[in-house]
């Protein structure tokens, strides 16, 4: 689907965009605004590409914002409903890393998110094999 030479350039463009996002997120985190940071991280996700590097780059950015969240309820209150599905996908990516602190955080958020979004959210995350994160 990402065709030849054009695809390569596209990936670079996406990575550049992710880098801009990253700086924005760092500054938001310094201002103690973790919820804003997560919103910024989730915007434009998943990157419309099959390139694993882009996906990993985006994951690193989202991961940074996720780990900074202390008030999960507050974060979910502030997050729009349309971001629930994409957040769930990143939670599962986090759980798949096996890294203890990441998994702890992801499990905590998963519990609250499932209460809000229901099992349908998990289903949509599992059954979508086209737009993976």
């Amino acid at each position: 689907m990402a065709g030849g030479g054009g695809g390569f350039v596209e990936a670079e463009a996406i990575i550049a965009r992710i880098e801009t996002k990253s700086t924005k997120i760092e500054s938001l985190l310094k201002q103690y605004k973790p919820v804003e940071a997560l919103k910024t991280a989730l915007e434009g996700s998943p990157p419309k590409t099959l390139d694993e590097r882009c996906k990993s780059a985006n994951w690193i950015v989202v991961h940074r914002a996720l780990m900074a969240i202390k008030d999960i309820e507050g974060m979910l209150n502030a997050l729009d409903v349309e971001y629930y599905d994409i957040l769930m996908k990143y939670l599962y990516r986090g759980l798949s890393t096996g890294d203890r602190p990441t998994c702890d955080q992801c499990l905590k958020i998963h519990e609250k998110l499932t209460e809000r979004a229901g099992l349908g959210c998990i289903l949509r995350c599992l059954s979508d094999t086209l737009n993976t994160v």
Partner: protein
Amino acid sequence: MAVVDVHRFAESITCHAWSPDHSMVAFCPNNNEVHIYKSSQDQWERLHVLEKHDQIVSGIDWSSKSNKIVTVSHDRNSYVWSLEGGEWVPTLVILRLNRAALCVQWSPKENKFAVGSGAKTVCICYYEQENNWWVSKLIRKRHESSVTNVAWHPNNILLATTSTDGKCRVFSTFIKGVDTKDSKAGSPAESKFGEQIIQLDLSYSWAFGVKWSPSGNTLAYVGHSSMIYFVDDVGPSPLAQSVAFRDLPLRDVLFISEKMVIGVGYDSNPMVFAADDTGIWSFIRYIGEKKEVSSGSSYSSQFSEAFTKFYGQSKATTANEASESSKSRGGVHDNCINSIVPLSKAGSPKVMRFSTSGLDGKIAIWDLESMQEELGHQF
């Protein structure tokens, strides 16, 4: 509650269909037979057992005007049963399939029936008077995977199909000699047999349960990702809407009016969806009550236990208490509902009664008469 009658007929029911006067029900108890029961004075008695198929009967439909039962099975065969002298006599229909047949439906005029199969084909069967047998015409193109459900448009020519490739397609099934060309309807190109009118790419996962609205203007089908899709003005410029909902996926849908749809599936509780005055579809409510667990979350004890284990792995988290003692979800069905059948006169714009059957072996009859006020003006 809107439930009028519930009866457990077998361990598990694959599919069911009603007789024209709704006094008898034919179903497959998850084996190669079809059982016909008659209801008399609150008792159900078994009248017939139709035993011809070698494998599970995956689809049954009972025509209301000609009183014929068509059955299809995983054994790649189909039989049309006619009542002769109190006995059901089968006629084999050679479908020419090399994989299982998955679903069947009589057309509105009952001169054709459509069969969806695992062979990525749809068979349209019609009766040839001269040879006194049913002929099968195949739509081989387009489908990339099993055809899970078929639905006839009221005009007897258009057929909608859903498939495990995630797409919903509409085909023309015009057959010379069987169908008459309606001078108003469509261009000559659309009248070619097997011609694909439209392909809907809304779902990323398996698609099931397609139905047309009573006027034929709207299509509804479900995806396995807990989504339901509505398409208005099916044709060159359709208006598609994807509605995501909270709970487990649906398996089948039914239009109870032009603007209201009931979906049934893995949640064992029928869901009502309606379109508001601007045409936007959304989830309204469950038909039956959903039993609330005292710990605050709405899951039964089976889920609570699973979640406790899942979240308990994190040292920082507090686990959900598994409080409820009963295993049932408090509804009519205990397991996945995989079929919903209307119990009104065919072609009527409003469906007042319908029945559901599922993996728990129960058939439940629902009546919406008492719920008309609650459902609102869309009903």
